[in-house]
């Protein structure tokens, strides 16, 4: 007993002692510094987006916004090259379409894993895990050649349909569904005469909502940010996605329009920042969840 209270004392002593306070201060200083480092580049970008090019040329760095944001955007659009709305729309179509396909078919595949007893089930799951890390980026030449033959290059559909096969999402969905779905629900629905496909759509999908939401966010952001695939497949400017629009800001006509370039960059990430402000809690929780088990 006395031993125990002694321990209690030392623990408390450590916590309240000088060392603990100093450590805490260090932790807060480092954390705040890192936080500032996360925001600073984007803040500098935003500030310069509101400053005119002459202002930037006299002093490039400023921490306070000016009033030229709309002038900069006007210059940007007057050159008829960088079109953020077009890019936004194309990216939205691609990211939205591929997210819906990926989420739906991954859930379906995971459902097949969890509910049915079929001979190849375990083999198929091992296969899914085996192909999870295969990099699509490195086989894009074969993919492009296939698109040439099918006359489907420069077509946003080719950025959407392949999302049906998303191995890592199937893996995640299965991990979620396995404990979350009481098999009795499926049984009783069958007794009520429901068909298998109906059970999946009307009963199982709603149960999977939390997992679907998390995975949908990551699929959407991943597709939205993808540069390599659209850069290879798309060549007409009117089908450019947002990250490709960014690369247009490198063009010579914008070279000296510093303010406009910053304004353009701001426009490309504005949707993401807004999404992040509202969903950050879920996104961070999703990152922790997706870490698979250690």
């Amino acid at each position, binding site marked *: 007993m006395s031993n125990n209270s002694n321990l209690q004392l030392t623990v408390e002593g450590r916590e309240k002692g000088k060392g603990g306070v100093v450590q805490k201060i260090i932790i807060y200083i480092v954390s705040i510094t890192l*936080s500032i480092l996360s925001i600073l580049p984007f803040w500098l970008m935003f500030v310069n987006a509101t400053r005119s090019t002459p202002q930037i040329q006299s002093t490039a760095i400023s921490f306070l916004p000016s009033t030229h944001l709309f002038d900069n955007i006007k210059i940007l659009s007057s050159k008829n090259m960088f079109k953020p709305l077009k890019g936004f729309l194309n990216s939205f179509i691609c990211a939205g379409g591929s997210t819906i396909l990926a989420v739906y078919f991954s859930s379906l595949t995971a459902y097949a894993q969890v509910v049915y007893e079929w001979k190849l089930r375990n083999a198929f799951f091992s296969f899914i895990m085996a192909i999870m890390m295969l990099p699509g980026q490195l086989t894009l030449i074969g993919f492009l050649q296939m698109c040439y033959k099918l006359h489907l290059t420069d077509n946003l559909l080719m950025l959407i349909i392949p999302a049906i096969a998303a191995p890592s999402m199937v893996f995640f969905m299965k991990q979620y569904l396995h404990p979350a779905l009481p098999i009795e629900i499926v049984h009783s629905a069958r007794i009520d005469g429901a068909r298998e496909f109906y059970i999946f759509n009307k009963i199982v999908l709603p149960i999977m909502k939390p997992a679907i939401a998390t995975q949908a966010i990551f699929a959407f952001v991943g597709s939205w940010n993808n540069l390599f695939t659209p850069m290879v497949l798309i060549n007409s400017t009117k089908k450019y996605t947002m990250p490709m629009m960014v690369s247009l800001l490198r063009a010579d006509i914008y070279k000296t329009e510093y303010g406009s370039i910053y304004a353009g*960059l701001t426009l490309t990430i504005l949707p993401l920042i807004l999404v992040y402000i509202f969903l950050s809690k879920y996104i961070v929780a999703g990152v922790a969840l997706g870490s698979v088990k250690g």
Partner: protein
Amino acid sequence: MKRKKSYDYARFGYIFSIPFVLAWLVFQLYPILYTLLLGFTDLKGAGNTDFNIMWSEPFKNFITVLKNKSFKIAFGNTLIIWGLNFVPQILLALLIAAWFTNRRSTIKAQGIFKVLFYLPNIITQATVAMLFFQLSLYPKGVLNDLLLMLKIIKQPVDMQRIANVAKGFVIFIQTWMWYGYTAIVLISGVLGISPELFEAAEVDGANQWQTFFRVTIPSIKTMLLFTLVTSLIGGLNMFDIPKLFLNGGPNNATLTTSLYIYNKAFQGGYLYGEASAASMIMFFIIVFLSCIVFYLLRDKDEVELRRLVRKQEKEYKRKLKMSKM
């Protein structure tokens, strides 16, 4: 009356897996095999689809790539950039994980810190690369102005022209983008460790460092290895940042293998054959690495269970045969 044999539900297992399998065969397996095939051909020219397999020297492309000086530089750069970003990234993430999961002192506002640490990861890499290009401009750039203001330099420096500085930028951006992600993953790993382990360490009088190195690290060993391998696979695919920051320059200092492949296949000569060979070399390196991930991810208990079941089945069948004889 004999009960009606239960409806055969097993077929739905197959039916519901068909879309995934079909999409995978068409959009992933076929491109893999086709890229592999193209590696043995002389295919080149924008939009060209006619090729000849080089029967006389089938491995010509592979040999050309492996001997190519730019490819060697690109491969070296990719490893250097990955390695120099991974070390600070994992150290910082471990430190944050240790701090944020400390049982003796709770850190307030952890949620906000995590959200901010993760922020750079969610922003379009293309935009981040372009932003850092703009910030590091010469002679009038934000970073030059900042360094002048802080009196760290006396004259503006053309950072984009100095090879090591340019490489340093890419390394910094990668670290900056990924440490938050790794930290969140590790925090959730540490929180998953059984609290009893920590209590036992506390009772034994272990100090913070001892607890960290003797309890925490060994408990998340698999997770650390998993992080290492997946980060390496990601690093070997690095493209967006080096492409839009300085497009591989100056003097190939930020040229990565993915950028090399892109330039070979989609610029200048459109050497699809050679680029396919380079792709496949990288592909097989990554396949090898993902075998490690696969091994780490497999459910050890389940594997053991399945092995036992199979053994029992065999035993049972053998006994059945024996009894029939």
